[in-house]
C-alpha cells in the first residue's frame, strides 16, 4: 500500500495520483520527476498519492489504469491521464496548466 502523502493539505489545489508498477525503472523515474515538479512548481499546493498497482490491483481497475506509470490529475479541471515516466517536463507542465520555469534544469527545449 504505502500511499505516500505529500503535504497534508485538505484543500490542496492539485490532487495527483501516481500509479506505478513496483520498482521498474520507468516507475522510479516517474516518482523522481513528480517529486521534482511538486517541489519546484507546487510547493504546498498539491496532494500526491503514489499507488503501487502490484499491491492494489483492484485500484488499477477502478481507476482505469492501463499503462504504467500513469499520473492521474484529478484536480483541478478535467481528469487527465499522464502516461509515461513524466520525462517530457514541458508537456507535463502544459497538462497541469503550469508555466515552465526557465531555471528548471529538466526543461529540455
Amino acid at each position, binding site marked *: 500500500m504505502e500511499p505516500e502523502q505529500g503535504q497534508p493539505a485538505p484543500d490542496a489545489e492539485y490532487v495527483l495520483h501516481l*500509479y506505478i*508498477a513496483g520498482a*521498474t525503472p*520507468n516507475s522510479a*523515474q*516517474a516518482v523522481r*520527476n513528480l517529486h521534482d515538479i511538486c517541489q519546484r512548481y507546487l510547493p504546498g499546493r498539491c496532494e500526491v498519492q503514489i499507488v503501487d*498497482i*502490484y499491491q492494489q*490491483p*483492484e485500484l*488499477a*481497475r477502478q481507476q*482505469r*489504469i*492501463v*499503462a*504504467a*506509470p*500513469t*499520473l492521474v490529475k484529478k484536480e483541478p479541471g*478535467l*481528469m*487527465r*491521464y*499522464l*502516461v*509515461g*515516466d*513524466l*520525462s*517530457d517536463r514541458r*508537456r*507535463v507542465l502544459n*497538462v497541469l496548466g503550469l508555466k515552465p520555469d526557465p531555471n528548471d534544469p529538466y526543461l529540455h527545449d
Partner: protein
Amino acid sequence: MTAASALPQLPKAPTGIDGLDEITNGGLPKGRPTLICGSAGCGKTLMSVEFLVRGILEHDEPGVLMAFEETADELSSNVTSLGIDLKQLVADKKLRLDHVHVDRSEIEETGEYDLEGLFIRLGYAIDSIGAKRVVLDTIESLFSGFTNQAILRSEIRRLFRWLKDKGVTTIITAERGEGQLTRQGLEEYVSDCVILLDNRVINQITTRRLRIVKYRGSTHGTNEYPYLITEDGISVLPVTSLKLEHNVSNDIVSTGVPELDEMFTRGGLYRGSSVLITGTAGTAKTTLAAFFAAAACRRGERCLFFAFEESPQQLIRNMLSVGLDLQPFVEQGLLYIEASRPTLNGLEQHLVTIHKLIGQHRPQAVVIDPISNLVSVGSITEVRGMLTRLIDYLKVQGITALFTALVNGRNANQEMTEEGVSSLVDTWLHVRDLEGIGERNRGVSILKARGMSHSNQVREFLVTDAGIRLLDVIIGPSGIVTGASRHTQFLQEQSVALAAQQEIERRERELERKRRVLEATIANLRTEFESVEEELRFTNREEERQHQELSQARRQIAAGHGARSANNSAAAPTNS
C-alpha cells in the same frame, strides 16, 4: 500414423459452439491464444462470449472478459437476447468482466511507459476466480488510445507470451484490415490459431462464413463454413458432414403407394435412407410426397413436411382432392407442415430452421418439397453443399427423407437434377410425362435403389379421387403402351377375345350337331338291328316248332303202331 496417434495430441479447449469443435477437431488450442478476426457485424464478440459462457457452464472453466469497446452493462444486455445471463455468472464468481476504457482525449504521453496496468488488471482478474479462459475483445482499440506504436507492439507481443505462460486459453478479437487479416497486423503475434469470420451479401442475402486460416499443430477443416447467429448462439455448419459414419437400418418402410412398394424387391424403402423424386412440372411429385408422409403418420411416426411452394392449408386441400386427408395427422401432432418461401431466408438459415424443427419434433420422416426451389436463394454449388449437409444430418439421425426436385422438361431424357444431389441419395424415383398421340400420361420409374434390386419398368400411374394407382403393364406391339393407346389396346384385345369366344361357341354347336347326327344314325342302326334280330328270332322259333312237331309226329308214328286213337292226337296235336 500409429506413432502419431500414440503421441500426446495437442490439448484442446472445446468451445461448445455448434460445429466449431468438429471443424477444429476438438476446440481451440488449450492454454494458447487464438485470433478471431472479421469485419463489423460478424459476431466476433458473440463468438468469444459464447466461448466463455460455454466454458463456464459446460466445462467449469471460469473466464475473464476484457472488453475494450463495450462496458460490462452493454455487454450483458447485448447477450441477454441469447439467453445468457452474464451478471449472474459474475455474481457466481465464474466470470469477470473488465471494461478497459481508453480515451485518446484524456491521455497524454509524457515519456517511457509500458502496459503493466493492463497486465496487472488481467492477472488479478484471472487469479481472483481461477480463470482458464480469457477473451480480449478488440485489443486493437489500444492503438487508438496510445500513439507509441513501438511500445504497443512490443507490449502486445509480451501480453500474448504472458497469457501463454499463464496457461489460459485466450481469444483475441480484431477487426478485419485491408490487405491483411487484421488492421494492426496482430496475426503476426498470434501464431497458434487464426479464425477468420466473413460477412458477405450475395443476391441480397447475407451469409456469414468462417474459415480457419491456421491452426498450428492440428488438423482442421480448411473450407469456408457458413455459420449463423441464432437464438441459441452461434451455429457453425456443417455439424456432422466431416465423416461418413452412420448406422443403417434393415427395416423397410412404405412409400405410401402399395404398387410402388412392389416395384422394390424388398417391398419399400430402407428406413433412414434418402429418396429423391424428380420430375417435370405437374407429374404429381407433391402428391407422391404427401402419400409418403401419410404412410409415415399411419405407422404412428412423426413427419415433418417442408413445403416451399404451398401453404399448409393449400396442401391439405389439394391432397383432399386425391382422397388423402392430412388434417387428422396434423391434429394428432404427427404431421407438421412448415411452409415458407425459399427466398425468405438464406440457405444456411433454411438449414438451421430444418435442424431446429427436427430437434423440436424428433420426426422419423422428413419431406422437403421441392429442393429445386432453393436454387433461387443460392448458387448451385451452395445448394449442393447445403443439401449434402442436410442429407448427412438426416442420415445420422436415422430419418427417412424424401426430397422432390423439379427438372427441366425441355430435355426429355434429362435425368440429372440440377443440384447434383442424385449421387447423394439412396433411392431415386423419376416421374415423367409419357407424351403420346395427343395426350400426356404419367409414368414412374426407379432409377436407382441402393441395396436392393428393383423393377426396370416405367409404370403408368393415375392420380384418382382415391389416390395414386399404378396400372398394370400392358405391352403393345411396340412396347409398353399407356393412356389412350392402352385403352385401344384393351378394346382390341376385348374384340379378339370376343371373336375367340364366338369361335368356341360355334365349335360347340358343330359338335352338338355331329353328335346328334351320330346319335340318329346309331338309333337307325339299332332299329335295323332290332328288326333283323326279330326276324332271326322268328325264324328260329319257327324252326324249333317245326322241329318239335316233327319229333312229336315221329313219336306218334311210333305209338300209332298199336292204337288207333293216335288219329285223334293227330287232329289236335300238342294243345290238348
